[in-house]
């Protein structure tokens, strides 16, 4: 049991250290784990892709919890989940310390200034790619345009947009207006 805990910890810690680029960057590692350790099958991983989009949290975290839980219960789930975020905690802390230390250096200052438009551009690219990849059809685009254009008059809480769009999805599906 202890050996399993240690393995769980190191495998998911390893993902936390080596996955770059977000989104599905953790997937190759998760497939590797499925093949090597059989904590879950590749079929379960594919299912998890669907599940992860309807449960809170990034897929890496979801998969860590699932792998831990299915092999050794709550404690295993806890260990694997902590293990995948621990590297981030360490790396981000070190990075922000370095940035704080050299904040007054003109070069660092200007480099950090360049980060803002870069971050904004990367996020814009995610948004644009998402529109083309998420099978919205004409109806979905229409709803999206309505949401965004009404936001110029009044912007609601994120919860409102998620809730309303969930209801719309349910209703449209009920009347067979979307082909999911």
């Amino acid at each position, binding site marked *: 049991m202890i050996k399993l805990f240690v393995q769980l910890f190191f495998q998911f810690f390893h993902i936390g250290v080596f996955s770059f680029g977000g989104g599905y960057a953790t997937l190759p590692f998760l497939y590797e784990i499925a093949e090597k350790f059989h904590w879950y099958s590749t079929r379960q991983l594919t299912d998890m892709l669907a599940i992860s989009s309807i449960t809170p949290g990034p897929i890496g975290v979801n998969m860590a919890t699932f792998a831990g839980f299915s092999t050794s219960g709550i404690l295993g789930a806890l260990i694997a989940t902590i293990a995948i975020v621990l590297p981030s905690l360490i790396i981000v802390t070190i990075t922000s310390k370095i940035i704080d230390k050299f904040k007054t250096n003109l070069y660092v200052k200007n480099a*950090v200034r360049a980060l803002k438009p870069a971050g904004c551009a990367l996020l814009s690219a995610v948004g644009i790619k998402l529109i083309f990849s998420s099978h919205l059809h004409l109806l979905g685009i229409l709803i999206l345009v309505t949401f965004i254009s009404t936001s110029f008059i009044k912007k609601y809480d994120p919860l409102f947009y998620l809730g309303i769009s969930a209801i719309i999805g349910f209703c449209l599906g009920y009347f067979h207006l979307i082909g999911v």
Partner: protein
Amino acid sequence: MQNSIFSIFKVFFKVGLLLLGGGYVILPLLQSELVEKKGWITSEELCEYYALSTSLPGIIAVNTAIFTGRKLAGSKGAFVSVMGVIMPAFLAIILLASLFEEIVYMKSVQNIFWGVGIGVITLLFLAIKEMWGKCVTDKFSTIIYILCLILALFTKISPALIVILALLIGIISQKIKNERMKKYD
């Protein structure tokens, strides 16, 4: 201003709960909760954290949460923010572990999440709109924005490299500025 650790945890728990779809959804959520409602951080800082998060190892949403938490209340803030964000994910998987297959493949559940997908994209664009107004303000930032957007959309260059490129441009432009100053002296 030190914010109370518990109130930071609460905000991040809410963000974690609404973190549906991809991890990037954390940006609109933080924009709404922390920038607009609480005023604890600015849109500019959020863009900065996102750029840094994509260029560091680890899960982007988690990295972004930690950067933000650290800014709010140091190491303690970093710790509670990451715990807040992953706790709903953890609980959801534990609770649903045995019911997964039945739930996920139910037609009505899929319809609901088709709808939520639209909500998620809406949130993303609302956040981009806000951030764009704050982060793209002069010639320097416009050039970097357009360059990075083109690279991210039309090439396969990894986001991490795009961020590093932006950092380099920042450093080089400072260098050019320095040289010019020297000339005038």
